[in-house]
């Protein structure tokens, strides 16, 4: 048996990661290419928007509500040490709209949607349904991948917008109901603190997260192999890689949009 060589192991890992990134980029390029060449399956796009958007509303709503409420409580406790309880509405709205709404919303949808996409496409792969599409003169990329990508990119900003509103509402409920903040002042401070760029950045982040959620779910599902175990692995990989892509892209967008501010 050859002795373990850590340099070789690192080299293999780096090469493997680069190769995977290359395949993923080609996949994304091919999917984006499908956007500009007809046919575009509008019915499937609407169907996917329903699956991704409407069916994710409960999980998005509850996540935002509880997070906004908990955030208000924490900021109140922290702020009260410096007699700064009045910052609660401002900090809640900034934190929710800039970060927690898109990121937590993205992660929750990734957990629900990336896994479902990977499982569905993976099952279609191992049961030869994707091959059947090809033999029926239908481009599987245009029929399966493009509608999912378009639907996720369009739907995530809507979901995040709703999550932001519900998150602020969660903070409002705790702030006015439990912490004794004045309702009118709470809303006024919320509006005063919020800037247009906060909302824009939130929606841009959501669209980017939507792209990665659909891309990772589709990519891992489309290339899954090896029966039920392969589909299970594809599902796990889809969720993990979507999480990483969301968190990394969030950091990059945050640095680009807010990095220059004092």
């Amino acid at each position, binding site marked *: 048996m050859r002795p373990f060589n850590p340099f070789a192991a690192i080299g293999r890992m780096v090469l493997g990661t680069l190769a995977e990134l290359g395949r993923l980029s080609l996949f994304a390029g091919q999917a984006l290419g499908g956007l500009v060449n007809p046919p575009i399956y509008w019915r499937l796009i609407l169907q996917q928007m329903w699956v991704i958007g409407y069916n994710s509303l409960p999980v998005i709503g509850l996540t935002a509500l509880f997070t906004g409420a908990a955030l208000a409580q924490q900021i109140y406790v922290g702020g009260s040490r410096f007699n700064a309880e009045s910052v609660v509405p401002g900090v809640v709205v900034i934190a929710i709209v800039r970060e927690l709404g898109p990121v937590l919303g993205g992660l929750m949808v990734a957990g629900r949607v990336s896994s479902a996409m990977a499982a569905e496409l993976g*099952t*279609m792969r191992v*049961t*030869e*349904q994707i*091959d*059947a599409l*090809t*033999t*029926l*003169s*239908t*481009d599987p990329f245009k*029929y399966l991948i493009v509608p999912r990508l378009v639907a996720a990119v369009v739907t995530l900003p809507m979901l995040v917008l709703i999550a932001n509103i519900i998150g602020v509402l969660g903070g409002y409920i705790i702030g006015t109901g439990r912490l004794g903040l004045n309702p009118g002042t709470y809303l006024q401070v919320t509006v005063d603190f919020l800037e247009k760029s906060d909302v824009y950045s939130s929606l841009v982040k959501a669209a980017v997260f939507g792209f990665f959620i659909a891309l990772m779910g589709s990519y891992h599902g489309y290339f899954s192999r090896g029966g039920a175990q392969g589909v299970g692995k594809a599902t796990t990989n889809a969720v993990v890689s979507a999480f990483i892509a969301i968190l990394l892209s969030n950091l990059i967008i945050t640095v680009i949009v807010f990095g220059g501010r004092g």
Partner: protein
Amino acid sequence: MSGLDKIVLKDVHKSFGPKTVLKSINLAVPAGQSLVVIGGSGTGKSVMLKSVLGLIKPDAGEIMIDGENVLTMSRSERREVLTRFGMLFQGAALFDSLPVWENVAFGLIQGKGMDRKEAQDIAIEKLRRVGLSPDVGNLSPSELSGGMQKRVGLARAIAAEPEIIFFDEPTTGLDPIMADVINDLIVECVKDLGATTISITHDMASARKIADRIAMIYHGEIIWEGTRDEIDRSGNDYVDQFIHGRAHGPIQMEVLKP
């Protein structure tokens, strides 16, 4: 090989990593003929079929459909050629997300751009052709038995009235009676359409029923080819062992003995 050959495979090779699956496949199927390729599991039958369909890209060789090499075609040209194909998959490969009728009509709606209502009427007619009542059309594929799924798969394969139909293990997993029903349907449908067909199977009863000619593939090569009637006197030990299902002979199975 003659000028009337519908499908021609010339020296087709395919390897997956170090494993060579197709060594040098040479086959010609004249128009209107039914060729059955027999062979054990893992001998390259499915890879050969998928190579013709463009689902797998061979490493070398030529695959000609009506005299045109499909391996050098662009993706859109390839898709155009595929409109002349029908395929019955081993597991039927029906789309879970669509009702039965839409599965059958899929190639008409998506591939040929036919109006949905017109395609539905044709789908119901094709379902009737394979012995299924119109109300089956509204069911989900998961509500059907294995035999019914195969019949729906067959209806889908013939829906667009293709010139070429491939059957991948059409009777695998079916009881002998249902297998015979499927064989009869294949023979009738192919005769009606006048289609050229390639079937792959290891079911000899099926091969004898649906074949005009039979070829045997072993270790990625065609080792024998002849008419259906010639197979019992092929003079080939490999063919003899296979058609009689003997454990002993030149074909050695990779089975660990206790």
